[in-house]
């Protein structure tokens, strides 16, 4: 990459915007995933009674097991949320920046 191209990308107003938007989005999603997962870890280690209590009256299926499966489904869902926005919005911004900077 030449110094010239570098300057053009760095000074491109949408480059800073892309980095800011994408990083913020990735951070928010990461905190959501970590928050959900560590709540699960803490419930399992600090309040095992809640972990093993039944989902509803008359059932034996424990809250912890349902939560574990739900977290796995949730992880997949979160990757889907990121991919769909990145495919739609971030890729288009990225392409525009590269095209203008290397023209």
């Amino acid at each position, binding site marked *: 990459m030449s110094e010239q191209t570098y300057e053009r990308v760095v000074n491109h107003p949408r480059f800073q915007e892309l980095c800011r938007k994408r990083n913020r989005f990735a951070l928010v999603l990461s905190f959501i995933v970590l928050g959900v997962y560590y709540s699960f*870890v803490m419930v399992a*280690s600090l309040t095992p009674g809640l*972990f093993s209590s039944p989902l509803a009256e008359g059932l034996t299926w424990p809250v912890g097991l349902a939560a574990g499966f739900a977290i796995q489904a949730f992880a997949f869902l979160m990757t889907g949320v990121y991919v769909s926005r990145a495919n739609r919005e971030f890729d288009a911004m990225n392409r525009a920046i590269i095209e203008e900077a290397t023209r």
Partner: protein
Amino acid sequence: MSRLVPLAAALAAFAPAVALAGGGAIEGEVEKQSVNVMAIVMFLIFVVGTLGITYWASKRTRSASDFYTAGGGITGFQNGLAIAGDYMSAAAFLGVSGMVFGKGVDGVFYTAGWTVGWPLILFMIAERLRNLGKYTFADVASYRLEQTPIRSLAASGALAVVVFYLIAQMVGAGKLIQLLFGLEYAYAVVLVGVLMMLYVTFGGMLATTWVQIIKACLLLGGCTILVGMAMVQFGFSPETVIAKAVENHKAGTDILSPSASISDPITAISLSLALMCGPAGLPHILMRFFTVPDAKAARKSVFYATGFIGYFFILAVMIGFTAITIVGTNPAYLDATGKIVGGGNMAAIHLSKAVGGDVFLGFISAVAFATILAVVSGLALAGASAVSHDLYARVIKKGHATEREEMLVGRIAVLTLGVLAIVLGLLFENQNIAFMVSLAFGLAASVNFPVLFLSIFWKGLTTRGAFIGGFLGLVSAVACVVLGPAVWVGVLKNPAPIFPYEHYALFSMTIAFVSIWLFSVTDKSARAVTDKEAYRYQLIRSETGLGAEAPVAH
């Protein structure tokens, strides 16, 4: 003990051996079972098919890029399946279902941790890794740092993870083969080693990828059928499965609570860190991101992989819970003391026989073996690339090796790793090898991951910081394992461990991150200035993909 059955005779004439009920798990003593003809036939079909693919792939493996990354021409969906294939090891399949069979909900604690690492890899690492790297994660870690020390460190980290993981897989394969196929331990180890060398030496990444894809489809399909057939016995009611499991398990309602090994917060956090960050430092997993054409395909691969992995783990847990009732109450699968025949890891295998008879047992056994084969192939390729691309071409030849030389060294490295894996697999037959998996994941999380992560995100990282910090991460991980319960008590037979925690990632990762930071901020050398200056160029490439390696068109 058991009668010896030569492999050739067993394969040619399917000569039956004396049936013997075994005890113990995959780790530790196992006794050889009767020769399982159906399993061997199905496994042979898999071997013939994958060798055919290897022949096809060998015609297309001409350049170094073909060898290491299949020319970057794998699609996002294919790579997602292959990542899932790399990740769903026999230990995950048999181990998780076995853990649920033995202890109940503990299993889901592991599977949730193994799954949530993936969205984080996607948000933080996947696209940037693809944009910055060429063949190995050391490309990324050493992108703006001094090549010789950082390449050497990253390649050593990669090789250490590969070798420990490989030994664990080889020993597991040998034990599994004794249990499932009724063949001798040594034959199994040699067979796995030789097939692995054939796939990787001739077919490179293209053959390795397709072995992973086929194995992933077989494993996902096989487990779906297994759970489906087991659920029939419970009228497809998940509630009945759990209610019956509580009724039939000797621990009763205790299987619904996390066991003592998890309810200590430091252990829980330390374990969860290793489960989450370990995969982001496994060289054979990271290498998969260079097989796709661009950042977009890298992103898609994680999406598909997370879906397949999450689904697979739900199946593995359900296999354990249904087996508690179906296998645990059937005297045919229990020995005189009421323990499961063949050890705790056999729950899924017995379940397949109980619900699908000998044919299905054969199928699931073959799938379990194919799983090991696929994982060791991925490991061998990652180890070979650390030797040929990082150590030979960049450190020794300083980037002046020709592509031909580099590929030749790569192939020699695969053969060397194969022979080493066979020899070590034979040596460690009766050793306690549980610590090797712990060490592989611990090193991945405390050496490879911190260096890689900070090199991507932290401008202030310097060569000195990465080298000293990464090295201290390595030393602390090894020390925690050697002085901890796994080696100090388990192998060296001391009464009490010096380091009390079995799960140590919290400590070794903290040491690695803090010392990388400390030795970077105090670095006043001229090299440190260059390292920080170069970050701006790295940032542009990592964020936009400008200047990234393009795929090779054939």
